[in-house]
């Protein structure tokens, strides 16, 4: 059975202008899935809407058996859906430790210190200076903190919105190393990413979104040579043919 089920899902910023249109998708426990697509395809809007950040205009979302379609973002975080936005994903005016402490509030009191220690051990760069203002961190370290914060609560599914966007190649490598660590820990992962090659290497299944609609859903291997992906991105293959 799917861990995350999305059915006939539409979302957008204006009621009469859906950006995501009638999307169906299933994510299984422990699976790593990337969502690809050209600019403006609605990838980020889709995951933001699942995470309660953008208005759902139709359809439904289930986490395990729970209908989370219209749940506010704080309730989703408590329910086990971790979300890392593309930008502004940490509190820059607070220290690394304070960022972690806020997230740790979702855990039972007895587990907070141990879980923070576990995450600090996982990310030594953060452990080295817990009292540094998060705003003073590099782009890669910020993404690291954002991921650590999301992982702290042991989410059932972790959704990341373009974690490597705007970073230098060196920092991109750092971010994907972090994601590989998360993947190795068996966390169910949904990743929106412009860096197609790295995303395909990290995940096992790819969904391609074109013009707000799901145009492809299959193993990443089928997209590795770039031919099918190019056709999907350029629109020479229609959603009906692929899904």
């Amino acid at each position: 059975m799917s861990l995350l089920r999305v059915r006939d899902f539409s979302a957008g910023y204006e009621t009469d202008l859906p950006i995501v249109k009638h999307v169906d998708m299933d994510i299984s426990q422990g699976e790593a899935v990337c969502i690809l697509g050209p600019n403006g395809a609605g990838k980020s809007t889709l995951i933001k809407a699942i995470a309660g950040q953008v208005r759902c205009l139709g359809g439904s979302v289930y986490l395990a058996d729970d209908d989370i379609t219209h749940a506010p973002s704080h309730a989703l975080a408590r329910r086990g859906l971790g979300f890392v936005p593309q930008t502004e994903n940490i509190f820059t005016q607070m220290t690394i430790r304070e960022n972690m402490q806020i997230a740790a509030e979702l855990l039972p009191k007895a587990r907070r210190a141990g879980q923070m220690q576990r995450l600090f051990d996982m990310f030594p760069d953060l452990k080295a200076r817990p009292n540094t203002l998060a705003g003073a961190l590099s782009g890669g370290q910020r993404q690291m903190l954002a991921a650590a914060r999301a992982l702290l609560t042991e989410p059932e599914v972790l959704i990341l919105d373009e974690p490597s966007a705007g970073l230098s190649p060196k920092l991109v490598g750092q971010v994907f190393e972090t994601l590989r660590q998360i993947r190795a820990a068996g966390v169910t992962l949904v990743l929106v990413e412009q860096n197609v090659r790295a995303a395909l290497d990290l995940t096992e299944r790819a969904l391609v979104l074109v013009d707000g609609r799901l145009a492809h859903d299959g193993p990443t291997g089928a997209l590795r040579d770039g031919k099918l992906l190019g056709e999907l991105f350029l629109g020479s293959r229609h959603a009906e043919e692929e899904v």
Partner: protein
Amino acid sequence: MSPQVLIDGIIAGSTIGLGAIGLTLTYAILRFANFTHGDFLAWGAYMTLTVSGFLGGLLAGLGIGDPLGPFSFGWGLPLSLLAGMALTVLLTLGLDKVLFGRLRRRGADAIIIVMASFGASMALRSLLEFIFTANPAYFTRELQIAQKIGMGMRATPDQMLTVGLTAVLVIVLHVFVTRSSTGRAMRAVSENPGLAGVYGLDVQKVIRVTWIIGAGLACFAGVMSGLLVQIRPYMGFDLLLPLFAAAILGGIGSIPGAMLGGLIIGLAEAVTVQVVGAEWRAGVAFVVLVLVLILRPSGLFGRRV
């Protein structure tokens, strides 16, 4: 210039600072300039006065209504203050539910919410005047003699108590906001409410806590102002400009900044009264406000909460 200016400024600045802290918290979390905050001061003072009227008679009947030590009031006032704070909290939460909360849910622009607060402020003020009349009221008719406190300055026990309690409150509040989990949540919502939700924080709950703290402080400031001067329906409105000037001078969102801003405005008013004349007192806050906005718009501590 007489050194008395210093203590006069600190006493006036204590009330202004306390009011400004509530204002700056509301602004940092809810992101609008709340014109009703001054009226929360006045309502807090009047509701405390009303409870005090009932309680004072009761305590006098029990033989424990006499003034406490050197102060001008008995147990009735501190007990009534607690009730007044609770009632002011109910007033602000009620106003948020019927007015500000609705506008927030509709996604109204900040200017719409500011205008709504302006209208609510007028309504609250007029209602006070209707219920209690425009005549001044007093918590106590006891006369207090100012005592020497050193360096050529004098102050009454009530005034010293106000300054002392204000200092304690500011320290407690600062520690609360910087060290407690609720304080961290307030700082998080102040910086980025959307992200706070992603972190699992209930933003609506944080907003309610902010109203509760702001209302409690407003009531306290109103009662202290009423104790030292008098209670009038317009007392909050008259304090509004100094409150905004103090909050902006301190840096919106900063608790120590708001207190320091309040003290600076209070001292500037005291100096003006002595050097230029009492009729210019009201203009000081306006001059400071304009100067800060021109020279350092982010204020002295230009960070959130």
